[in-house]
Structure formats: structure tokens, C-alpha cells
């Protein structure tokens, strides 16, 4: 992306040109302007680091020109099907539509967006901004077919019969990794994905007016230290609950951006570092009655240079919580990949792809995003979507 170019445009006050320059490369500017991990800011060579992310957000949000809204373009190239309308699928669709292909995105839910709509809470990515970005992609001639679950409503073979020349699987990694914790199956224990989905899917994202449609106690403990865990904690705070975030390492080692951590702290999330949950205790009605934890401490540096953690002896204590949310990672959804015969998977459930040309073991089927890498920030998913688009382009021109 031409960062100096669009920063210059913003300095000169030409927001439209800046926006256009961004959207040439990045199809979701207002989303990336909010939740991107912004590796560009860490390597900024300016003397006082420029906050590129904030500038991108500013350009995307302030650009509103109704005159430029034209009817969607009609593409005449070969037909390509993209399964999943998450960040990776949208990036690939944007890139392929720029190359004049007829792209159709298949989405199982009511609205496109994937994890951005159903996995990220409203206060981080407003749904209105997401709709804006997606309508820009729609304008390029990308069709989005909702209520269509590829593999169940329509199979991959039928897609090929319908005349699709290539299929890109971008279904992401949405299934939670199950935690081997005693008592993780009692009522009142949610996995992070389930909690965020319930918040986003129902109208519970308008926090002040709607009651959560599920059981949420007054004291909530969130286990995990990633972005999902912090999102869960911040969403629960907005419901008016007392929330503590429990994780094994220190605050500095959390895999989130520093500003998010500070915001979370300001909103009232209690950070409980160096604690390992041992057991979820049930009460008499088989709801969560408490969380048994052990304190951890640094012991020694192991051979790889990482600090080793050990339990502090006799430090078992009980946290008084009514709801536990577990957000310790995720793995790819197995439903689609099991339905395609001949598709080779890795041990962890991800799709095996060729390093050079991005194809899977089935001809004409490509894969990108978290379904290949299992986990990774938004940016990596979008980049891999773009690479997959290039691969498809090369494959179809052969």
C-alpha cells in the first residue's frame, strides 16, 4: 500500500483521492483503520511515529460522496466462487473483481462480513462501517449470495457444474479449541466464540436497551489473553458485569495491541495476570459457583530464551464468579472440508496447500485465510486472500 501517498493526500486535504488510493489495495479501510494490528507503525522510519491506522480510519470515515455511488459494474470474465465472506474472502473477491472476473461470494448467514460481523463486537467495528466497506466491494460487481451453506445447501461438485471455473475456500477458523478443564461442561461456561456470537447475532449489541438473551452472572471471569478474550471481557463490562480477565502470563506478554489493553483497563476490566485456572466449581444447581485458580511465577529461562512458569506452592485460591468465558484459541471449521472428497488436511485440521501455486489437493479449489494458517491477525488473512486471488488468476490464464 502506498502509505506516503495517502498520508500526503490527507495533508493536502484531498480525502477522496486518499480514500481511492487506499481502496486500490485495501478493500476494508474503515475496518482495518480500527482493528488492524498495524505492523507498519512499528517499522515507521519517521522520527515521531505516524499513526497510520488512525489516518486510514479518518480517511475512510470522512469520505462520504453520494455522487460517486454508481450502479454495480458488470464483469464478463470467468465465474469464480468464494466460500465465506470473512476478511480473506472479501479481499480475494475485491482483488479478483479488479481483474474483471465474475465473482460470487457464498455466505451462510444473513449478511456478509463473517467474523467481522459475528465475531467482533459492535464497539470495535460498527456494523454500519462494515456495510459501507462491503457496499464498495459490491459496486465492483461482486455478487453475494446469503443463506447458502456450501457443502449442505449446495455442494462443491454442483458449483463446478454451474460453470464456476475456480473455487476459493475462505471459511476461516471459527470452532473454539476445547479446554481440558474439569467442569468445563457445566452451565454458565461459554466459549468466547459462542459468547460473541450470541452478543452479535441477537440484538444484544445495543447494550443499554436489551437484556442478554442468555444467562450471564454478575461476576464474569474470562480465561485467555488474546483479542477474543479481551473482546469478551469488554462486551461483558458493557452489560454492567464485574469482569476479571484471567491469564497465565504477564500483561506485557498479551497478544493484543497496547492501546486495546489500556482501553480495556479504563473501561473497568480487572486484569489478573500470572494465574492459571485449575477447576470450575459447580454450585448446587450445576451452574458455575466459582473458579479454582493457582498463582504462577517465573522460575527460570528455558533453552529457547522464554521464561518458564511454575506454580507457586500453596497458592490455590477460589474466585467468586457466576459465569466463565473460555477464549483460548480456535481451529478451522470441519464441516465443509469433510464434504469435499479428496481434499487433504493437515494434522491440525487446516487445509494443505501448495506453497508455490496455492492450490489444494483438488484441482480448481484454492484456500486462503485462517483455514490454512489456523490463527493469525486480520491483516494476514486479507493478504493471503489477495495472494490466492493472484494464484487463481494465474491458474485460469494457463
Amino acid at each position, binding site marked *: 500500500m502506498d502509505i506516503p501517498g495517502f498520508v500526503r493526500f490527507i495533508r493536502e486535504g484531498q480525502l477522496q483521492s486518499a480514500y481511492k488510493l487506499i481502496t486500490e489495495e485495501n478493500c476494508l479501510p474503515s475496518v482495518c483503520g480500527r482493528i488492524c494490528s498495524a505492523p507498519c507503525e512499528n517499522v515507521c522510519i519517521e522520527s515521531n511515529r505516524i499513526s497510520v491506522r488512525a489516518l486510514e480510519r479518518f480517511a475512510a470515515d470522512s469520505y462520504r460522496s453520494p455522487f460517486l455511488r454508481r450502479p454495480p459494474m458488470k464483469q464478463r470474465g470467468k465465474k469464480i466462487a468464494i466460500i465465506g465472506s470473512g476478511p480473506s474472502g472479501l479481499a480475494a473477491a475485491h482483488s479478483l473483481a479488479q481483474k474483471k472476473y465474475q465473482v460470487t461470494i457464498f455466505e451462510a448467514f444473513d449478511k456478509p462480513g463473517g467474523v467481522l460481523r459475528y465475531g467482533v463486537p459492535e464497539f470495535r467495528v460498527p456494523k454500519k462501517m462494515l456495510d459501507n466497506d462491503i457496499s464498495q466491494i459490491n459496486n465492483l460487481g461482486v455478487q453475494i449470495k446469503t443463506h447458502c451453506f456450501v457443502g449442505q445447501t449446495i455442494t462443491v461438485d454442483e458449483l463446478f457444474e454451474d460453470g464456476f471455473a475456480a473455487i476459493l475456500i475462505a471459511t476461516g477458523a471459527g470452532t473454539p479449541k476445547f479446554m481440558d478443564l474439569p467442569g468445563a461442561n457445566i452451565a454458565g461456561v461459554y*466459549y468466547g466464540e*459462542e459468547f460473541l*456470537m450470541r452478543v452479535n447475532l441477537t440484538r444484544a449489541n445495543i447494550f443499554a436497551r436489551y437484556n442478554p438473551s442468555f*444467562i450471564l452472572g454478575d461476576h464474569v471471569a474470562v480465561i485467555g489473553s488474546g483479542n477474543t478474550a479481551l473482546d469478551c471481557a469488554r462486551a461483558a463490562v458493557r452489560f454492567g458485569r464485574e469482569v476479571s480477565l484471567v491469564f497465565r502470563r504477564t500483561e506485557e506478554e498479551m497478544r493484543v495491541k497496547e492501546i486495546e489493553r489500556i482501553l480495556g483497563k479504563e473501561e473497568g476490566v480487572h486484569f489478573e495476570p500470572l494465574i492459571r485456572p485449575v477447576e470450575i466449581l459447580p454450585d448446587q444447581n450445576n451452574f458455575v459457583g466459582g473458579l479454582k485458580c493457582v498463582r504462577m511465577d517465573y522460575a527460570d529461562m528455558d533453552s529457547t530464551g522464554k521464561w518458564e512458569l511454575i506454580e507457586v506452592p500453596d497458592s490455590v485460591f477460589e474466585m467468586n464468579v457466576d459465569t466463565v468465558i473460555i477464549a483460548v484459541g480456535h481451529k478451522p471449521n470441519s464441516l465443509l472440508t469433510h464434504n469435499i472428497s479428496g481434499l487433504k488436511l493437515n494434522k491440525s485440521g487446516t487445509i494443505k496447500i501448495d506453497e508455490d501455486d496455492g492450490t489444494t489437493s483438488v484441482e480448481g479449489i484454492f484456500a486462503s485465510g485462517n483455514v490454512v494458517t489456523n490463527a493469525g491477525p486480520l491483516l494476514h488473512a486479507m493478504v493471503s486472500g489477495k495472494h490466492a486471488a493472484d494464484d487463481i488468476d494465474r491458474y485460469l490464464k494457463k
Partner: protein
Amino acid sequence: MFEIKNKIILAEDIKRLDVYAPDIAAKSLPGQFVSICPEEGDERIPLTVIDSDFNKGMISIIFRECGSTTKKLGKFSIGEKVSSILGPLGLPARIESKGLIVCIATDMGTAQILPICRAHRKAGCKVIGIIGAKTKRQLLLEAQMRLSCDKLHVRTEDGSYVKRGVATDVLKSILQEKKVDLVYVIGSIEFMQSVVSISKKQKIKTRVQLKPVMVDCMGMCGACRVKVGGEMVLACCDGPEFDGHKVDFDDFSLRQKAFEEAGTCQNSKSPFSRKNGGAGILTKLFSDIIEK
């Protein structure tokens, strides 16, 4: 949007809807389910497809009004449109082609076992059906079950219809008399557990359909996790049909019972409601305009 073409009230607060959804009707097999969201922003609920008509493009669903979402769905009338239906989801039921099969169900399970009885009968099995209910009023689909089974036993708990008794007693007597190849059971958790314990003694293959709480119904949330054979699986991807002997019912009932209890108090008012909105805010708005 999916249009409701027909609506039948089967028993007290049990309703049947016929919805026009050609894509789903063309694909759905016995044992699969759909996830329905009545209005935008509601919870999605999984409901078994009872019948699908490929020519008309219609699917039928039967549900009991218990939670807030099913109550809302029950208020839909003919000609109205449901916001979203996704499906068919889950794996289709494994259908045997020969042998004697006992299909046993109570209450709402009767509706879900009907397509399985039909499919087995069509494939060439001999099907014995056992249905039970509390009273005659709550007995569902008796005529349809009679048509799709070779022999049907009906039991009501208070003796208001046919014979007083419990469905499991009939199963016990059948298992003593005949050589049964497969027992298929759908019903409440305790009922399934008791049937499985009976069939386990005689080492007869048993299949159950589990209906845990689901949120997105396509394997993304982990709400429908159940322990089968010591392994955690998702009922929406790997089910809803499971081997009855392997399911850990105690673990399963822990979560489900709590949700059932919570379902009754789900419609309580929000503690955060500020009493603004509705008619009050409109009059305030209009008075402001008039003053200006």
C-alpha cells in the same frame, strides 16, 4: 425471506409450519435440521425437518412454544415471511435396509422420529413404532405414525387414550419376544437414558438424536458440545444422530437442564431498561416539533 404457506396447530402450543424454501427442500434428508431466525436480530433455533416436498419446494417443521423465539415463531401466520432459514444442517440419519427396527419416542420426539420411520420403511425394514405422551391432548401425529410403521403402540401416562403405561415398558416386552436389530430413540434426556440402559443390557444397537442448545448451528460456537465416547464433539457437525451407548448422558444433562430452567425466566424485563422508547418518545418528539 421465506414465506409460510401453511400452518397447523397440532396440540396445545405445538404448531406445524410449511415454509417455501426450494433449495433446502431439494437437499434435505431424514434426520437433518434447519436453523431458523424468525425476525432479524433474534436467536437462531434448530428445528428438525419433518417432511420435505421437492416438487412444491416446501419443508415442514414442528415445534413447541417454550422459549421466547419459538413463541414468536408460533405467532407467524400464513403468508408472513420468516427472516432466515439455513439448512439442511447436520448429518443425515443412517438408514438400514433390512431387519426389525423399533422406533420409540415421546412428546416432541414423535415429530422427529416420523421421517426416520418413513425412511426405514421405504428402505425395506420392518418398523415397530412406540409413542408415548402424558395425555391424549399432547399426543402428536398418531395417524401419520400409523401409516409409516408396520405396527404402532400408543401409551398415555394417565390412560386417557388407548392404554395407561409408559413407552419403555412396551419396549421391554417387545425386546423379550422378538429379535430386534436396532432401537431408535428420540425424546427427553431421561427417557433416552432409560431406553439406552434397557438396550445396553441386551446389547442391541441403539441410536439417539440429541438436541442440545445451539447458537449458529454450523460448528462455530461450541455451544452444542457433547461428550460421545470420551471425546468432545459438536452435535451440529457430527450429529445430531449418535450411537446411544457411547453418549455421556450425565454430562449432557448438566448443561441442558440449566438452560431449560433459564428458558422459563427468559422473558423477564431488562434491568437496564430506561422506560424511554415506544409511544412515549414519539409524543415527546411531536410536541417538540409542534413547539418549534
